[in-house]
């Protein structure tokens, strides 16, 4: 059978795809909480910074962001006398994380704003500071609210990693393109690749489902 020969190189690509997904999801989560909470901040500078970040990265295309960081940023670095040439892996993780983080920030903001006003009043009556209220009372309650959209974003992020093959990173999409050039057996290769992405997406969605149940466990307890 021909197709068995493709398994090894494609699995190597899968591994790179998984690594990229994990790193960029972690970066994206940090940015999502930072910018999402920043948008709710009363400090005008932090708020403006967060809003600008969210709007720019949600308003432009991921591929534009990726190419900008890969092709344009080093030139900007030359202009201002800094070495801003990064390894393609760094550029890929940065672009994916920045992009998904901007979408995640809106999820965080929306979920925090959906916490009932009465919870903020109870916190005030107990004399919590604004920051404590946000991080100790509002955010933990908002977390389960965020999980379903976060699950969708994680799968979106996995799919988006395919674009880093365009800056010659050896992920699954890149391996597939290499094999196709070599063998011209497009039907077999791309069918396999589609199912591999599908499989990874299902596993990721299942993991996010477990996480969702974990952070929302106080919700499911009933008398």
């Amino acid at each position, binding site marked *: 059978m021909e197709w068995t020969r493709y398994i090894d190189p494609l699995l190597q690509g899968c591994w790179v795809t998984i690594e990229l997904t994990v790193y960029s999801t972690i970066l994206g989560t940090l940015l999502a909480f930072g910018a999402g909470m920043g948008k709710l901040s009363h400090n005008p500078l932090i708020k403006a910074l967060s809003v600008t970040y969210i709007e720019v990265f949600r308003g432009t295309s991921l591929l534009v962001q990726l190419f900008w960081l890969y092709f344009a940023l080093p030139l900007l670095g030359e202009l201002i006398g800094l070495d801003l040439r990064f390894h393609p892996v760094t550029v890929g993780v940065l672009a994916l994380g920045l992009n998904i983080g901007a979408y995640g920030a809106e999820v965080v903001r929306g979920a925090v704003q959906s916490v009932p006003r009465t919870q903020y009043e109870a916190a*005030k009556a107990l004399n*919590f500071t604004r920051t404590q209220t946000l991080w100790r009372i509002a955010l933990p*309650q908002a977390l389960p609210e965020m999980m379903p959209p976060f699950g969708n974003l994680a799968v979106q992020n996995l799919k988006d990693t395919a674009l880093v093959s365009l800056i010659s990173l050896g992920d699954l999409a890149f391996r597939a393109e290499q094999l196709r050039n070599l063998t011209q057996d497009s039907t077999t290769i791309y069918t396999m690749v589609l199912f591999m992405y599908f499989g990874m997406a299902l596993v990721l969605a299942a993991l996010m489902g477990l996480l969702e149940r974990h952070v929302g466990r*106080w*919700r499911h307890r009933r008398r």
Partner: protein
Amino acid sequence: MNEPIIRCEGVVKRFGELTVLDHLDFTVDPGEKVTIIGPSGSGKSTVLRVLMTLERINEGVVYVDGEPLWHEQGAKGLEPASEAHLRKMRQKMGMVFQHFNLFPHMTVLRNLTEAPRYVLGLSPREARQRAEELLELVGLSDKAEAFPSQLSGGQQQRVAIARALAMRPKIMLFDEPTSALDPELVGEVLRVIRSLAEEHELTMLLVTHEMDFARRISDRVCFFDQGRILEQGPPEEIFSSPKEQRTREFLHAVLHPEE
């Protein structure tokens, strides 16, 4: 004679066009148990919410424990209070809400220890000890590890009372603490409030529709109407021989709803 612990002078609170508190003058002595009754929309709850700093006032001055609540003594008289001043003043008060407002993501124990630990700076051990004593007081020692959603409404409200007490306030504000409860659960909450009233030096301010209860625990009953106190006095006097027509009508409607 003691200084009053709460003194409202000409307090006005408006919501848009609506005047909820209309030049309210009102004092409470230390240790006094005061019940506020009156028709809905008369501003009863707003008084508590103003004291807890959940609502700003438009005019007037409120003094709590000898200091202005919404103001600070500045170089040129009273100035609007800073957040630091408000936080200092909030420390003197605790509040129990109609809908309990427990933190749903925390166990009962953590509901009670969170603020003492992170607001008062108690050690985990001290906070836990304090919480356990209070849970015993409200009869819920066995529910320490439960989540609020696993408790009945009456149990949740008892936890909410304990949570407010854990901050060791001088003044306790109860905002219709039994109005959201099923009738059979009202008693257990009232018993807890009553034992507090009888055994502690706390100043208590209570908004309620439970007239029997008000009669038994209060030193004084205030009848609110249209943002002011229309009539006040010892419970026997208000309930047995109210002077004002409006008070009589209200009490009659509450005590004999079917007539």
